[in-house]
């Protein structure tokens, strides 16, 4: 059984059909890239999976269970975490707190236990902090030490992207949705991020769907590539297969003028 499956997913905004009958599957442990020109419906696809939008038709099955129609927090609790195309951290919370918030759906202490600070609540708080520190150490020395107590807004752009991934990791997901993780990064940082995506699967066991524009990254990380254009899945396969696919080339570069003339 695939970890995530969408069946004939449809979503439109007014007259714009953002997603039109997309069938998509990903197996546990896979890394799948979604590519496509701007406006192809990639981020809308993520938004539908993560519950920010409800689909007009079709199904989203996570681990065999229907999840569309649930709230984003319920879907995150079920095991799907995401990052955002335009990094969206909690800017005035510290680096550590940002990650600790991610643990919210995995912890339980309520108002009474928090006010009384029961032993179980204290243990839980300590575990939250330790886990958050462990997750941040996954990114080397960049987000540890004195960084823990810095507000997130002081971070550099690349570090913000890393922190956003850390926050997603803290929700202990099975499926990680990364929306353009290398956008705005310099070439060195991009190479590093490519490695990191691989490590996320190999060391932490996440299944990953990544939206990406940088073809080197796509080539470097993907087991499979899915191409969307105008909300329609136009190709699917290995990077090599997709990169030589006529429909894909056409979607990116347009139809040659002479062909158009003769048609």
């Amino acid at each position, binding site marked *: 059984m695939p970890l995530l499956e969408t069946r004939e997913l449809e979503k439109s905004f007014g007259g714009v059909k953002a997603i039109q009958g997309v069938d998509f599957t990903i197996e546990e442990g896979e890394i799948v890239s979604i590519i496509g020109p701007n406006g192809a419906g990639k981020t809308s696809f993520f938004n539908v999976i*993560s519950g*920010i939008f409800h689909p007009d038709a079709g199904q989203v099955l996570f681990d065999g269970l229907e999840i569309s129609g649930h*709230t*984003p*927090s*319920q879907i*995150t*609790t079920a095991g799907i*975490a*995401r990052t*955002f195309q335009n990094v*969206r*951290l*909690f*800017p*005035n*919370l510290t680096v550590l*707190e940002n990650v*600790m*918030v*991610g*643990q*919210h*759906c*995995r*912890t339980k*202490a*309520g*108002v009474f236990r*928090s*006010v*009384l*600070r029961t032993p179980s*609540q204290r243990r*839980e*708080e300590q575990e*939250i902090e330790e886990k958050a520190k462990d997750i941040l150490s996954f990114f080397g020395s960049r987000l540890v*030490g*004195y960084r*823990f*107590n*810095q*507000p997130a*807004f*002081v971070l550099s752009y690349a570090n913000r992207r890393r922190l956003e991934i850390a*926050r*997603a990791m*803290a*929700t202990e997901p099975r499926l990680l949705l990364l929306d353009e993780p290398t956008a705005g990064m310099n070439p060195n940082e991009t190479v590093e991020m490519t490695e990191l995506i691989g490590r996320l699967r190999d060391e932490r066991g996440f299944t990953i769907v990544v939206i990406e524009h940088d073809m080197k990254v796509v080539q470097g990380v993907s087991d499979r590539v899915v191409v969307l254009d105008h909300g329609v899945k136009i190709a699917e396969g290995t990077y090599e297969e997709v990169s030589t696919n006529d429909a894909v080339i056409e979607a990116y570069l347009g139809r040659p003028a002479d062909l158009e003339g003769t048609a």
Partner: protein
Amino acid sequence: MTAVATQPEARAVRDPSRIEGRRVLKVGTLAGVAMIYVAAVGLLDTFNARMIISPILSLAYLLFFAAPFLAGRVFTKRIELEGIETKPATGADVGAAALAGLIAGLMPALFAWAVNTFPDLRSTFPGWSPQMVDLLTLGRGVAAAFLLLPGISAAVAALGAATGLLSKRVQKALAAGTFTVIGLALFSVVVDDFFDWFKALPDFLYPNAGAMSILSAAVSFVVAAGLALLLPGRVPKFTTGLASEDGATRRRSTLIGAVIILVIVLLVPRFLGGILNELLINVGFFALMALGLNVVVGYAGLLDLGYVAFFAVGAYATGVLTSPISPTWDPMLSWWQAFPIVLALAALAGLFVGTPVLRMRGDYLAIVTLGFGEIVRLLLLSDWLSPYFGGAQGIRNIPGIPIFGQEVNVTTPVLMVYMVMAFVALAAFISWRLEHSRIGRAWAAMREDEDVAEAVGVDTVKAKLTAFITGAVIASFAGALFAAKVGSVFTNSFEILVSIVILVIVIVGGMGNIVGVLVGAVVLIGVLGGPNQPGLLQELGEYKLLFYGALLVFMMLKRPEGLLPSRRRQQELHQDEFLQDAWLDRSPMAPGPSVAEPRGKDYEF
């Protein structure tokens, strides 16, 4: 072409010895408008009877001439920036200040002439009265005022500017002396009340009905200024010394400090007279409500403008459950028996208000909650609910709180103060524990970005309702205590203004910081007074809200994060400064603040 190109340069380089005409005109006019304002709204009239130093200075003239004084200070005040050398103030600046004072003084004189000559103008200024013109012209007629007012305000402005020429240390000493005299005079009631056991001191300070004599003012000034000269920087040295100690020592010092404060707090009410204890109780009620609202607005970021509704629920529930003559149903429970039921009802009210507004944000939420607040009050007054809650008659004969066989109510102010303090402490404790828990983090995340909080697994529906319910329960503490203290509840205690004042306390005190909110309650309710409660400055009377407004405007301009802000709010409003600090911390050689001991000032409780 060249002339155009050089123009900005010519503007940038100023001759320091030249008096800057435009600036003088601007500052002078502003000060003049302020003086006219003080007179026109009737402050001169009202505050003339309130002497600061008898018989030479009344509160009215203190306010009136504060404008030229402050205007004068503008001319010699230098903003110090690291690495930028500023030109020291000179005599020319004092001359400019005097000129500005002259312009300022001319304006109220013109105003006095205008209202005197054109009677039609008088209806425009409701503060007008023959006495006002008299006061404005110092009792010497309009013609003399054209000489006197500009002359005096020029002198005052020059004096203000001249203080800027003195060394920082002397300036501080003078300021300490001045503020001590003004403070002693304004708070004569407190000092009088406090030194009930040592009447000689207030008798010396205030020989003349709450006003200081020239002698006592001079002595206080010298003592305060002398102390400020002799003890410069002792206190900051002590605190910075403490900050550099290791964690254990600091914790111990904090603990000792807390115990000392606790002992003082427990002892003080015993020595205070009725007026001050009454005041403390009022401060306590508002502190409780502000703490509750702080959970809703400060932590969770939900702007609730109808918060007084929960106070009303607490008070009315207590009234109905305990009063023997509550209109239809009187179970006559004791306060303690009723209390858990009151809390449950308040929680229910929180849920009831919270649920329909779950989808609303920001301005929309504020307007809807504003409506809810009014609905509760109007429902209590309505024909429908009057039979149960007494309508305009309210509920009377509410018994006090029985403790150890004694009934605590308005007749036992000291015990009531302890009761209120205990509940303030409880509310502060609850807020603090919640703030530093997973729920507090969820609230903070939600305040930052609700959609993202939801997307990273925070159930925002639950988090919002938790905030509303917690806030409602804390407000019902205040309501239940209020009902027991006053012995009756009427709808006019729950007007919209109360909600606004509570919000102002939270904003001025420091949103999201418990200590800040408490300070806000002391400053606003204690000093200025609540909507229906007199503060220390009882003289303000009907002008209270004017000062609320002025304070709020001033704070929003100069210190939008409040008196004692939370770290997060401080950051939010001063991001660039934090960025700079963070950049300095990042230099590879600097170890940066360690994780266990965050560096820098940390206001968070």
